[in-house]
């Protein structure tokens, strides 16, 4: 196969689905108006695909903090922290996150993606074992591959299967690194962390939980699904991102293991990339303060989750526990594409997820809700989905 043949395949595949028309890769937000509204193709559009769970992207405190840092500290750090040193803001953000999570250590990375790479490549290497949930995010798969460790999968969110696979590993199990997510990003299901933590405890392995979609969303103080399940003590490393509930970019890992600090020297995705911009760090710190001090944002988000669930009951979907990530599973990619386009024309943007990005070859429309959505926004998308899909959902897998 010639070098570029694979692109022909990809181009043909896209052509067959989109017939040269609009696709998610080509959507341009001409103007962003608020955390939940934008102008797309000249039309005012409600955004339901942002992961902006707390609606903080236009928060005044965050913007002011970012603006001040921009004036004070400039546009960028122009290098990695190893080479150029850390700014005071980097260190402060790490202290604040460690404090929020009640952990001894925190390392901040430039993205959530590189946090997973950095943690997995930093903690595990050739000769080590990583065992991951089958539905893990691409960054977890990539981090595993780049670590050089031996990597095994267990069936999605199946603690008994994890247990079986750990037992199969024999004496190596007690040194294995188990990796799961708090809230799974595509299907919006939350991990059964109580049972996974129990299996982990029995095996003596280490547990990493990626709370990318659960920070600020779950738990009494917003620390995530591990907090909600009451098993934080069994979680050795929490990984996460600033790019969803905090509305900026960057990632982090917190832990009580002193070894985490050594990732600053040993982990290539920390060492060999530029550190987060001072303004981004300042915005993130302000957003974290918001997350901690305004639990009403979480309440508002969950009110919206329940409101949408009320609408979607009309679609006769099988019961799913309410979640800020709502998957609408469709029987085939063509229907998903058609519905996605139709919604966009009605001024509603949501995520179109086609295989292999969604697990098990399914196609889906994915919504993520925000504390900043109004009741009218929710009703608009609920009514549109029922109007477009009311008739066809019965034939869909769920």
């Amino acid at each position, binding site marked *: 196969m010639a070098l570029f043949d694979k692109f022909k395949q990809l181009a043909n595949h896209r052509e067959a689905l989109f017939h040269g028309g609009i696709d998610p890769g080509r959507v341009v937000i001409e103007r962003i108006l608020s955390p939940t509204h934008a102008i797309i193709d000249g039309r005012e559009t409600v955004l339901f695909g942002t992961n902006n769970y707390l609606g903080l992207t236009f928060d005044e405190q965050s913007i002011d903090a970012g603006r001040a840092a921009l004036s004070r500290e400039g546009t960028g750090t122009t290098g990695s922290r190893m080479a150029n040193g850390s700014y005071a803001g980097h260190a402060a953000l790490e202290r604040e996150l460690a404090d929020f999570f009640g952990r001894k250590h925190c390392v901040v990375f430039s993205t959530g993606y590189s946090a997973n790479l950095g943690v997995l490549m930093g903690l595990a290497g050739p000769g080590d074992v990583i065992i991951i949930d089958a539905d893990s995010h691409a960054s977890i798969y990539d981090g595993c591959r780049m670590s050089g460790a031996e*990597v095994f*999968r267990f069936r999605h969110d199946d603690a008994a299967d994890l247990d079986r696979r750990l037992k199969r590993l024999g004496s190596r199990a007690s040194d294995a690194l188990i990796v799961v997510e708090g809230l799974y990003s595509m299907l919006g299901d939350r991990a059964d962390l109580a049972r996974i933590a129990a299996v982990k405890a029995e095996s003596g392995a280490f547990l990493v939980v990626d709370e990318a979609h659960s920070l600020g969303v779950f738990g009494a103080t917003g620390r995530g699904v591990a907090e909600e399940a009451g098993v934080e003590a069994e979680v050795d490393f929490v990984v996460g991102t600033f790019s969803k509930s905090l509305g900026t970019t960057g990632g982090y890992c917190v832990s009580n293991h002193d070894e985490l600090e050594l990732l600053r020297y040993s982990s290539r995705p920390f060492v060999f990339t530029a550190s987060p911009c001072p303004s981004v760090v300042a915005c993130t710190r302000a957003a974290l303060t918001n997350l901690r001090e305004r639990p009403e944002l979480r309440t508002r988000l969950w009110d919206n989750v329940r409101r949408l669930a009320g609408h979607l009951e009309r679609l006769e979907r099988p019961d799913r526990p309410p979640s800020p990530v709502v998957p609408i599973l469709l029987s085939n990619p063509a229907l998903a594409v058609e519905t996605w386009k139709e919604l966009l024309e009605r001024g509603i943007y949501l995520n179109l997820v086609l295989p292999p990005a969604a*697990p*098990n070859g399914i196609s889906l429309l994915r919504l993520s809700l925000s504390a900043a959505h109004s009741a009218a926004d929710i009703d608009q998308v609920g009514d549109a989905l029922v109007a477009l899909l009311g008739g066809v959902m019965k034939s869909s897998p769920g």
Partner: protein
Amino acid sequence: MSEKATETRDLIFEVLRPFADEKGVSLSEGTELAADLDLDSMKIMEVLLEIEDRLDISIPQNILPNLRTLADLERELDALKTH
């Protein structure tokens, strides 16, 4: 071909037969997982989960790049079984 290897092959054929039937192809050593059976990486990983349980072995993800044909799969599984 040792008896054990034949056993492995039987299992591989059994697990993959539904995919072969769907594509209307018959299975042989040279059958390619992606080109002939239309299995993408996600589907191959699903197949491996099933084989792991049937043989009660652990198959590392790391072998994925080595798997083009059924013969490759058989060779990798036999290597794991003798571990």
